């Protein structure tokens, strides 16, 4: 690292630089049924580097930049060659001048480090028992992949930032299947935790087994109009990410966003007004980090408050162009729960979508939807599991009638309502022509 810093500092054409160091160690296990297939380890050490070059043409100041990567085994000659090549490219990148961030202090909330590799070895028996235990469902675990990852991240800049923090990730993918229905079915999902929490893993495994059993009983649904649809699971985070993307400086500068700071994003009469806080110290999220990619030390800030855009998520370049303070680019967020518990919305006919094939939200247009693999239809107390239907809607069009559950749920990048309640939705199905 010192060598790279010296090389960058010595280069006459470089006006600023950022080094993002990434050290990862992992222990990985792959299972077919409950048999151990391959075991792996990985040790990697890399640097992502940005170099900046200031120049002037016809009285206009520019800041060009180029990014490149360096591996720990790269020789000094190779690194120098990469720096020269990046600097040469940056000289033609005519971005209007802006400044890189400085920080008033080095204070940031400390991240907890977990020994996921050692824990995976010591807790392996318990973990294996949790994953493959018979919970009494007709479904079972088909296969599984487990990754215990730990490492270090460091961001160091020519502007004085130098911050290291631990990186911890415990990831597992499980495939569950069930052969007792008309057709064999499966559900597969990846889960991203910061550490091995056996309670949480047991809950996840049981939930997926239950959903798989549900899918084996599911029938293809008919087209249903004017339905109450409840989004749950990971779809909620994908849906809510639209708001963070809209309130981002680059989207606003480029005219792609409808968000205006200080103005309402929803209507005054919205059934439930959204409030989002960007929180870089979100515990339980593998994506939480105290510093952004340009070296801005992050602290928590409100993004939306009661349906209005309170702040803009920023980078150095676009905040400068928009003439607003650079408060940093945070990716983890909290969304305030709704006024009522989910149970208050379950007293009429509804469809709760439990698993999409792939739920998609277009962060520019607000279009969202997808085919579902499993949904629960409840009508007059009777539960029917459905599969194969699909929804296709637009957030801008439905955001004034949507409501949130009071209950919150932790997901990969957020703590947000457990469910979003949407009314008047068309669910496509089998009897369409």
């Amino acid at each position: 690292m010192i060598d790279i810093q010296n090389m960058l500092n010595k280069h006459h054409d470089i006006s600023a630089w950022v080094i993002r160091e990434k050290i990862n160690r992992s222990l990985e296990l792959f299972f077919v049924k409950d048999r151990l297939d391959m075991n792996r380890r990985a040790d990697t050490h890399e640097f992502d580097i940005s170099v900046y070059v200031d120049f002037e043409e016809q009285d206009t100041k520019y800041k060009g930049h180029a990014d490149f990567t360096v591996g720990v085994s790269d020789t000094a000659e190779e690194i120098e060659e990469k720096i020269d090549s990046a600097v040469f490219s940056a000289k033609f990148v005519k971005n209007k001048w802006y400044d890189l961030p400085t920080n008033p202090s080095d204070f940031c909330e400390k991240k907890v480090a977990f020994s996921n590799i050692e824990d995976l070895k010591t807790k392996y028996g318990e973990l294996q028992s949790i994953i493959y235990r018979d919970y009494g469902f007709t479904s079972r675990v088909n296969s599984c992949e487990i990754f215990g990852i730990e490492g270090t991240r460091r961001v160091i800049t020519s502007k004085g930032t130098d911050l290291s923090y631990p990186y911890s990730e415990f990831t597992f993918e499980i495939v569950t299947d069930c052969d007792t229905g008309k057709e064999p079915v499966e559900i597969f999902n990846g889960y991203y935790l910061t550490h091995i929490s056996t309670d949480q893993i047991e809950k996840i495994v049981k939930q997926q087994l239950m959903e798989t059993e549900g899918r084996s009983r599911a029938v293809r649904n008919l087209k249903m109009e004017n339905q109450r649809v409840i989004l749950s699971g990971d779809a909620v985070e994908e849906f809510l990410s639209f708001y963070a993307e809209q309130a981002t400086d680059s989207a606003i500068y480029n005219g792609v966003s409808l968000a205006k700071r200080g103005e309402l994003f929803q209507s005054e009469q919205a059934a439930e007004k959204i409030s989002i806080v960007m929180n870089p110290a979100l515990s339980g999220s593998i994506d939480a980090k105290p510093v952004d990619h340009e070296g801005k030390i992050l602290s928590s800030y409100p993004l939306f408050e009661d349906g209005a855009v309170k702040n803009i998520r920023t980078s150095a370049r676009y905040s400068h162009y928009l003439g607003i303070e650079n408060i940093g680019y945070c990716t983890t967020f909290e969304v305030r729960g709704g006024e009522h518990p989910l149970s208050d919305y379950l007293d009429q006919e509804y469809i709760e979508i439990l698993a999409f094939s792939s739920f998609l939200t277009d962060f520019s247009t607000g279009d969202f939807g997808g085919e579902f693999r499993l949904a629960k239809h409840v009508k007059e107390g009777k539960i029917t599991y459905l599969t194969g239907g699909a929804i296709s809607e637009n957030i801008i069009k439905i955001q004034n009638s949507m409501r949130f559950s009071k209950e919150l749920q932790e997901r990969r990048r957020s703590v947000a309502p457990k469910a979003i309640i949407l009314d008047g939705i068309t669910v496509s199905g089998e009897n369409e022509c």
Partner: protein
Amino acid sequence: MLRKKKDLQQIIDRLSKDFLYVSILATDVTGKKYTVHTGGIDVGPSADEDRGFVVRVFQDCGFSEYSFNRLCVETVCDAVRKIAEDDRAKFLELSKPLEYASIPSDEPLKIYHLGEAEILPEDVSPQEVIERMSQIHDRVKTESAHVVQLILNYSYTQVNKLFLSQNRDLYQSYVYTNTYAAAVARDNDNVQEDYLSRSGLCGYELMEEMEEMTRKAANRAEELLKAEKIVPGEYDIICDPDFTGLIAHEAFGHGAEMDMFVKNRAKGMEYLGKRVASDKVIMHDGASAYKEVSSYQFDDEGNPGGDTKIIDRGILVTGMCDALSAILLGSKPTGNGKRESYKRKAYTRMTNTFFEEGTDSLEDMITSIEKGYLLEGFSSGMEDPKNWGIQCVASKGREIINGKFTGKIVSPVYLTGYVPDLLQSISMVSPGLVLSGSGYCGKGWKEWVKTSTGGSYIKARGKLS
């Protein structure tokens, strides 16, 4: 990388004393990505950059691997022994191993391949690339009244891979290039976007098509401003080559990955030799089946790339297979063992996947439709090999009534349903095979690798929403 071959050979020699099988894959994948957009310019590394090593060893209780990017013969050999012996023994105290009847095929093989490109990307200066892209951006932006954001992207990737085992010595070096143009159009609160992309096993010459492609992407985004929401239903559909490729990929590409057969996760296993599509459908996958971004001489497990006919006139013939699944299934590897990077495990993955072209004209397809849509472009897809469900999202649908376009456009369009129903409904296939490798393919939710997909125009019946 070749300078390190001696060290890598030493690792093989030392570990061969302890293990029945040893191989090393070394990757040195470099490249650049240029983005010129309305808000500025960015230059960075190719998204596929990758520089490191992975060692695979086999002993009688199974396979182990070690991925690393600091090369020291002693340290690597120690680490591999620790993983394959100590770690594995600890886990096998509580779990039974998956049993392999033999080691991977390691017949002697030598390959030394240097790919060619008309204009090597490294010979073109950043100044020329950036100025050319900026000029295209400015010209097209001026012409397009409603386009607020234009994004032009050009990237090249120089792949250098070396594979060594006790009996194999393989080296390949080639370049692939991607271009991409996206446009966001806006009319008050109505925001729409569309994109087009090109790819190839080629160099800077791909840039020739950038201006026309950018103009088309801008027109397509502006056209979407008048798009309506589709009335969900089952319709006659015509799919453009991009969307046809997505169907091939999601419908029977993933379902024919034979590591899914090992886990009993693919329904296709029960249908080998049986009809799964109409007579019009002939589907291939293979690194040597077509020259595109996923064409190579050998895969990440050291097996030569091939051309697998997966569906022949509607009958499911076979799947594609990685080296380890081939041992477990008693079949042969097809050159489809691919890794996201040296850091990750190899799985059976698609390469260049496509439906063969046919003889029906696009005009006849359009004329034959009473009520339906021409589906263009795609944003994403998702597989479901166990249940043969499918989800493919088209950028737009052009309405056809009584054999003519009405001018009405719908967007977005989700094509969903049961794979055999969709494939058996394919009634017409046009000439003109086109493949595109601009995107990435995941295995479930992760393991992103470069693939290309394609076909020609096809007529089918599908459920749209």
